[in-house]
């Protein structure tokens, strides 16, 4: 305080001018219930200005005890639980799980069932990719592309509903094949829908890929190097965007992928744009594959002919002791999976969906562990965001397409 009689001098001293603004890092909570964190995840972000200094990802808000629950039900009854993993593309989980169980049992499913599984999986791959692209656009302020993407996704949801009976919780397929064949006229409907989906996907592509605002926001943001991505265990489009050509459909073909003509797009920069563009390209490949499958699919059974695995036809259950015994044992005790363990994986929309199964020979799983691709992607989110701007965090979170259901199980 100035002494009495001193005159007040408003000119700051030199020291004062040179002093830095005393600031502290700010900690911001994003989520768990934030419109941009689709799925419930909490991001604790430490900000220096608008730059992310440190980011901490906290999961567990959608934990349901999936793996433990599986130990209390038969192998078949696990199927509805798998719907709730990656709920945007439930068929991937259904078929992935069944493929793993069949690997453990050493069962070869009929050719037609393999084709049906490819069709279902690719339909849901398109749905998942459209959702990712649409949501990304929405959160960068482009509402139009979102609407086109969701319109196309709705067509897929309708076809999936006709096939499985449910929009999201498909529970389609059974150990040894699929539980029902394609509905009558469904193939034609799918082909028609694909034309429309192609148009809508092209619309999304046209609105975003060469859009100045969109590319400014996505190119060079959320970058992760090839090495880091591999270290974090990235798979799927996010890994391929970094320039690693790894796709289980090519690396270790399952079902009928080795018979199909398709390419796996590979990116360069590992940034948000590349991750987005991988998906745009994969949608085209998936459409191509579905068309091939519908054209080449053989007639025949969709379920193995073995009463130790497949439920007997109803007329046998009602009219023969053999049928009723098989039905009773399969329902009450479950499909007998021989003792042993296996790891089997399929390429889901987000990457490698791996299943580690262990059986003690009873009708119930001894242990099920799921390697969901989203977990590794979410683990790498902090690496992609730290040192970058807060605003770029949102598109980065979009392009890794975290699904709470599979990350937290």
């Amino acid at each position, binding site marked *: 305080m100035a002494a009495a009689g001193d005159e007040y001098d408003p000119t700051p001293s030199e020291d004062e001018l040179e002093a830095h603004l005393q600031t502290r890092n700010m900690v911001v909570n994003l989520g768990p219930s934030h419109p941009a964190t689709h799925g419930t995840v909490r991001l604790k972000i430490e900000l220096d200005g608008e730059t992310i200094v440190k980011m901490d990802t906290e999961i567990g808000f959608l934990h349901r005890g999936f793996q433990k629950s599986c130990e209390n039900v038969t192998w078949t009854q696990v199927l509805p639980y798998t719907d709730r993993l990656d709920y945007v593309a439930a068929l991937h989980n259904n078929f992935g799980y069944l493929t793993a169980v069949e690997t453990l049992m050493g069962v070869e499913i009929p050719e037609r069932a393999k084709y049906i599984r490819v069709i279902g999986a690719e339909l849901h791959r398109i749905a998942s990719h459209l959702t990712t692209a649409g949501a990304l656009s929405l959160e960068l302020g482009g509402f139009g592309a979102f609407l086109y993407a969701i319109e196309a996704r709705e067509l897929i949801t309708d076809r999936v509903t006709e096939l499985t009976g449910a929009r999201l919780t498909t529970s389609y397929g059974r150990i040894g094949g699929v539980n029902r064949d394609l509905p009558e006229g469904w193939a034609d409907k799918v082909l028609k829908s694909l034309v429309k989906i192609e148009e809508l996907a092209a619309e999304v592509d046209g609105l975003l890929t060469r859009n100045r605002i969109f590319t400014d926001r996505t190119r060079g943001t959320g970058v992760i190097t090839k090495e880091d991505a591999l270290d974090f265990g990235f798979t799927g489009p996010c890994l391929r965007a970094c320039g690693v050509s790894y796709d289980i459909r090519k690396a270790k073909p399952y079902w009928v992928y080795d018979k199909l003509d398709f390419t796996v797009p590979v990116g360069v920069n590992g940034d948000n744009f590349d991750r987005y563009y991988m998906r745009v390209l994969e949608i085209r490949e998936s459409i191509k594959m579905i068309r091939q499958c519908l054209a080449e699919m053989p007639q025949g059974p969709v379920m193995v002919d*073995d*009463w130790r695995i497949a439920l007997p036809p109803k007329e046998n259950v009602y009219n*023969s002791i053999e049928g009723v015994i098989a039905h009773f044992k399969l329902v*009450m005790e479950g499909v007998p999976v021989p003792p042993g363990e296996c790891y089997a994986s399929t390429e889901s929309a987000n990457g490698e969906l791996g299943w580690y199964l262990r059986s003690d020979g*009873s009708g119930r799983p001894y242990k099920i562990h799921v390697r969901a691709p989203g977990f590794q992607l979410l683990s790498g989110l902090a690496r992609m965001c730290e040192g970058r701007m807060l605003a770029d965090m949102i598109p980065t979170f979009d392009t890794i397409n975290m699904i709470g259901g599979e990350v937290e199980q």
Partner: protein
Amino acid sequence: MSDEKKVEAPKPPPPAGPPAPPPPKNPGFVTFVVDGKEVVAKPGTNMIDAAKSVGVDIPYYCYHPRLSVAANCRMCMVESSAAPPGKLVPACQTGITEGAVIKTDTDKVRAQQKMVMEFLLLNHPVDCSICDQAGECKLQDYYMKYDFEPSRLEGAKILRNKRKKLNDLVVLDQERCVLCTRCVRFMKEVAKAPQLGIFGRGSHEVVDISPAYGKLESNYAGNIVDICPVGALLNTDFRFRARAWFLSAAPSVCTGCSRGCNIYADYMGQDTYRFRPRENDAINQSWMCDGGRLSYKSLNKHRVLQSGVGRGGDVKDITRADALKLAVEKLQAMTGKVAFLASPVASNEDLLAGLAFARDVLKVKVIYAGGRPDGQADNFLITADKNPNRKGLEAIAKGFGLELKPFAELTRGIDAGSVKGLFALGAEVPEAEETFAARAQKLELFITTATNESKVTAAAHLTLAASVHVEDEGSFTQGDGTTQRFRRAYPPRGDSQPHWKWAVDLARALGLEMKAASSREIFKQLAPTVPELATFEWDKKAPMNQKRPGISSLPAGADGRPPGWREQGVPSIRGLTLPQGT
């Protein structure tokens, strides 16, 4: 099938003379190979049992380790190097040979198993959904394991009698029968009542009762239901009452007489549905009597689930706390004048706590032995003493320095007016209930802990609701002095609690320091003064709560259990209150 019978025909001796038998690899034992695994077994061991000891399951219907070998189901046919080439031999009947190589998993054996299963199921009715055996049926198990083919039957199945009543307990469904003759052999060899036989020929063969008998006359007929590998023989008492896979099994001991047959108490929620014999070579082998089998009913029916005050028709239900308060008041008013009656139906733990209470709180020197009246004995399992724990009562009384007097002296005392107050641990009395109830009218104070309602409980001033043996852990000392542990199936029903808990609560309320929260603690604290029980390893001797045979996969919470709950461990059962302190 006639082809395979020829297997037993003697092998023509080779021209060069019989080769010398190989010296045994393990002297005193027979060493042979089953599916590549070496088996060392005592001479005379059955091949099926020997194979089981190395983990090879040979399927069978007619074989039973405690019955003679019939070898008529043809399910256990295996390939043996000691058999004529190209022939299969029945594993149950073929003796084990030094150096033989047995194969149970070849195409030929598989084909044989498939054929047998197909024939067995050919005329089998489509009954699983209404059959009690479903879930523990060998036809179901083996069909899924060895056959799994659709039916090739054209036309109708042969119809037979579906409800042939063999006696009040056992009903025969001839359509479901696979003609293994286990029941026929059991009745002849174990029950010594050869009243069953096979009648007819070919597809029309049936098991039936011998024409000389109108119905099965045996106290052991219930066992043929247990040994029937399919659902042909059914227990009329259990029939249609519960699906086998919903039941849990608690290893327990039958309380019907002093034999102490080992049993499983099959229960669901807080109801026991049946008793099944549990293997014990030394006591009951695999069997139990029909009376013991039906004794489970007293665990469910006419139970004292709420303590009551008042005599005759004037009984008022009161809570456990109120009953305790009332009992304390009444006992305090008559200190030193209360006699103590102990029932040998109660477990050792109940009696340990009860007699400690009698000695230290009621200050009695003499206790009287109650319990059920004696009955008929037979020369197999049934004993004349219908109380499971008389030896235990005697031992504990002696160990505690109490004089155990017969019941007659108590009645004499009541009649003479020298006994004015009576505390009974267990309401079972060895005379007619009416007689004792009339006598008890003279008593100024009659308090009893009771599991079941009777004329005796009606005569008591105060009835304290007690739990039955399957509702707590404990032990019995049976007629031959063997002490056996039983396990808890479910928590006590209603407002009841174990006898020992009443004794502890009363002792504590009357000023005696007694700390015991479980029957285990009671035993650990009080048994050391009883020489007969001091060395009994209470924890180690507890039978394992093991998985029930058949379908053990329980739908989550189907009977009130939490999902994933199995037979092991103490249940924290949804909707049921666990008793305090246990």
